[in-house]
Each structure stands twice: as C-alpha cells, then as structure tokens.
C-alpha cells in the first residue's frame, strides 16, 4: 500500500509572499524541474490535495483563508511552509501587518528555508513531507481499526 507517496497532489497558496517563492513553486512544475515525474500535480483545489504548500507569512486577512483551506483538505494531509516568510515572517516579521509564520494558524510539517526558496529545496521539502504523510496515513488506519 502507501500509494500516497507515489501520487501527492498539491495545493499552493500565497499567504503574503513577495511572489519570489510562489514563482519558484510554479517553476517546479515546468520542464527543468518537472515534479510530475514523481506524480506530483498542482491541483489548486483543497478537496483534492494531499500537500498544502504555503508561501509567505500570516496576516490578519489571510489567517482565516489559510485555516479554511487546511480544513477543507481530506485527511491525511501535510503542510509544507516554503520560504523564510512562511517559516517565521522573514524580513517582514517586524511589519505591522505580519504576525509571523504559518505555524501560528495550522500545524506545519516541513519548513523549507530560503529567500527565495530554490526549486530544488522545495522539491526536497515535499519529498520529506511525503514520508510524514505516509506516517499520518498509517496512524489514521490504526485509529480506524481501533474505532472499528
């Protein structure tokens, strides 16, 4: 089993990134990096996604949006925070409208560093997340077994 690892579908959301990490996430799809080799698809729809790739930090307006997207994803799911802003707020941490990294709102499984994060490290991060995804699935089936 464990087909999750072979077919991770992403959803990407730009929380309050400067676009630097966003375009690098997109660049992962394109011929040079071609993440579809690993079965990764950028679905753009939370209900189809397994991996939540989020760039940029949290502000007051997008807090609910990030939460909403996360909740709408079916289990098991993982969150990958891409770029320093998503990890901690980065250079904008002191801005009045920025309240910090994504982990304030939703649990983050993998932190990808960089400003902007390079496609290679983004792919690395996602691959790492797949391991966690698999653990979560195993736990989920265990829970189901217990309940049943």
């Amino acid at each position, binding site marked *: 089993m464990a087909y999750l690892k072979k077919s991770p579908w992403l959803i990407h959301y730009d929380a309050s990134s*400067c676009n630097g990490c966003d*375009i690098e996430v997109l660049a992962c799809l394109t011929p040079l990096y071609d993440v579809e080799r690993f079965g990764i698809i950028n679905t753009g729809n939370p209900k189809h996604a397994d991996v939540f790739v989020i760039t940029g930090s949290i502000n007051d307006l997008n807090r609910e949006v990030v939460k909403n997207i996360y909740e709408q994803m079916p289990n098991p799911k993982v969150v990958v925070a891409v770029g320093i802003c998503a990890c901690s707020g980065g250079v904008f941490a002191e*801005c009045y409208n920025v309240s910090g990294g994504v982990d304030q709102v939703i649990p983050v499984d993998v932190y990808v560093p960089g400003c902007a994060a390079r496609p290679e490290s983004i792919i690395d991060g996602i691959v790492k997340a797949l391991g966690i995804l698999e653990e979560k699935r195993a736990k989920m089936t265990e829970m189901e077994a217990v309940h049943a």
Partner: protein
Amino acid sequence: MSKEVVIPFGPQHPVLPEPIHLDLVIEDEKVKQAIPSIGYVHRGLETLVEKREYPEYVYLAERICGICSFIHGATYCQGVEAVMNVEVPERALFLRTIWSEYSRLHSHLLWLGLAADGFGFENLFMDAWRLRESILDELEATTGGRVIQGSCKVGGVRRDIDSETLDEMVSRLEGLRGELSDLADVFLNDSSVKGRMKNVGILPAKEAYDYGAVGPTLRGSGVSSDARMIGYAAYGKIHFTPVTEDGCDCYSRCAVRAKEMFASIDIIKEAVQKIPDGPIEVKVTGKPEGEYFSRAEQPRGEVIHYVKGNGTRHLARHRVRTPTLTNIPPLVKMLEGCELADVPVIVLSIDPCIGCAER
C-alpha cells in the same frame, strides 16, 4: 426572479497565482459585476523605513516583489541617490540597465506562460517557462540569485560582470532569439490563442490613459508611454522606441509583451556594446534630506518610489506606487460585461503582481 449567480472568485484560486478576490455576479456566463478586492498579501513594509537604515532598506525594496525584484531595488536606490545627489558611475548604470532588461525578459516569459495557462494552453505555458529558465540562469550566474538578486546598492551595484561574460551573454541571447520568436509566433498567430484574446477585455486608448493604465496595458491600447524614455539609468544613451499595439484588447497587451522581449534583447546588446569601463560604485556617506519621485519602467509598467529623507539615517517616508495598483481601475472597466471564461484572461492581461501592489 433574478438569474444571477454569485461566485466567490479567489482569494485562493488556481488561475490566480496570487490572492486577489472578485465577487463575480454572472448570468448565463456573462459577468454582470466584478469588483476586485485586495489586501491578502499586505505586509506594510513601507513602515519599516523607521527600523532599517536607508542603505539596508534596499533588501526590503527588493522584496516588495519577487518578479520585479531587481527593478524595485534599482528604483529605490535611484531615488535615494537623487535625494543625496550621488553621482553613480556609468558602468553601474549600464549594469543596472542590463539586469533590468533581463528581469523584463524573465517577467514577460513568466507572464506569457501564465497567460497561456489562463486560457488553458498548457503546452505553451511549459514552453515559456522552459525558456525563462535560461534567463534565470544568466541572472543567477551574474548576481547569485534566481529571483531575488540583491545586486543593487545605494551608489552603484555590488557585482561587476566582466566584458567576456557580457559578450557571451549577448551571444546566448542571440541564440535564444530563434526560440523566442517561435514562442511569440504561437502567441501572435495561433488561431485558438487569438480566439481567446482578440476583442476580449477592450480598453480604448482614451479610457486607458484617463483611468491611469501604465505599461503594456497602456501601450496595448496604442498609447506610446514608457518610463524608459525618461532616460534614467543608461536608457538615455540607448536607442529605443516603445512597443505599442492598437488593438486595445488582451491580444494587443500580449503582443506588446511578446515584442518587448526582442526589444529587451536589443537593449541588452546595445548596452553591452556601449558599457564603459570604470568603477561600479561610489561610497555614499551622509544622511538623505529632501524628496524625490523616482520613476522606472517595470515589466508591468511605470513604478514610482517616493523617497523622503529627513536628515537621519532613517527615511521619513518611502512610498511605492506599483504598476499593478494603478492598473486596477482599468481592470474594473475591462471586466464589465465579459464572459466568465474571459475573467482569468482579462485579469492576467494587466499582469497583476499583487505582491507589488500591496507591499
């Protein structure tokens, strides 16, 4: 009984790489009303002038946006230099010009790809982004960063490019010209692409000018307006005419961008020919006092960095007016009465960079 469908379009939406939201009111796929709303990526970085000293603030200016990064940095520096009356060495100005045009190339390729994706031509998206990688390679090789370069500083630039490398870069660009024109050819001549962009999102010249459109959005409506003609950096020394198209629709805006890529190559080529030897920076001392509206042409249009110094190491005010912000009113007009399927194409046709617009 009203037959109107109300759809929350965004902030999270796969055709919008960035969060912006529209409340689409449609009837039979005809958009009755579409008012955009922004604010999801607002950080408020302009207030950080109080925490960062003006030379250090360049990093922040560059991170206003990850696509127009270099030009933001350069325009900010240009503003501070104007306030402080710094005479920047010629070579640095030429290098800024070269990098700016590389940024424009990568941004236009990025846009062409996203636009293709917006009207469902995945292959074209892939092709545009494949070519974009070779531009990014040049940027990375010469500055060290793919999307955020960090090579501009108040008083000049941080890195030099030796003339051999410059020549190689030009010859590689010449090599790329063929592939780029193949790509542009599809955008300009493919019937299905034309079908999706011709007569979509009409913005007549007068409205474009009156509503404050800038950049390709304005030039696509036949108004020749390009901030590079002001002659900042080394543009004054380079022969150049703005690209305009007079279709006033998405197709024209696309054509402007496609053709500007070649203009950029020409500019880089000319700049490399004319680049003088010399230092790449001057030492800047003192504290800025005074104000200046620093203007430059970004891939998306004219950007303005307003810099006001008060005689301390901290600026009193830094305000960025980005092209996307001022292109929003024309966008509101363009969306009126369009088709639902045209919404992404029209929104993308102003090349929105929300990261810029909201800072």
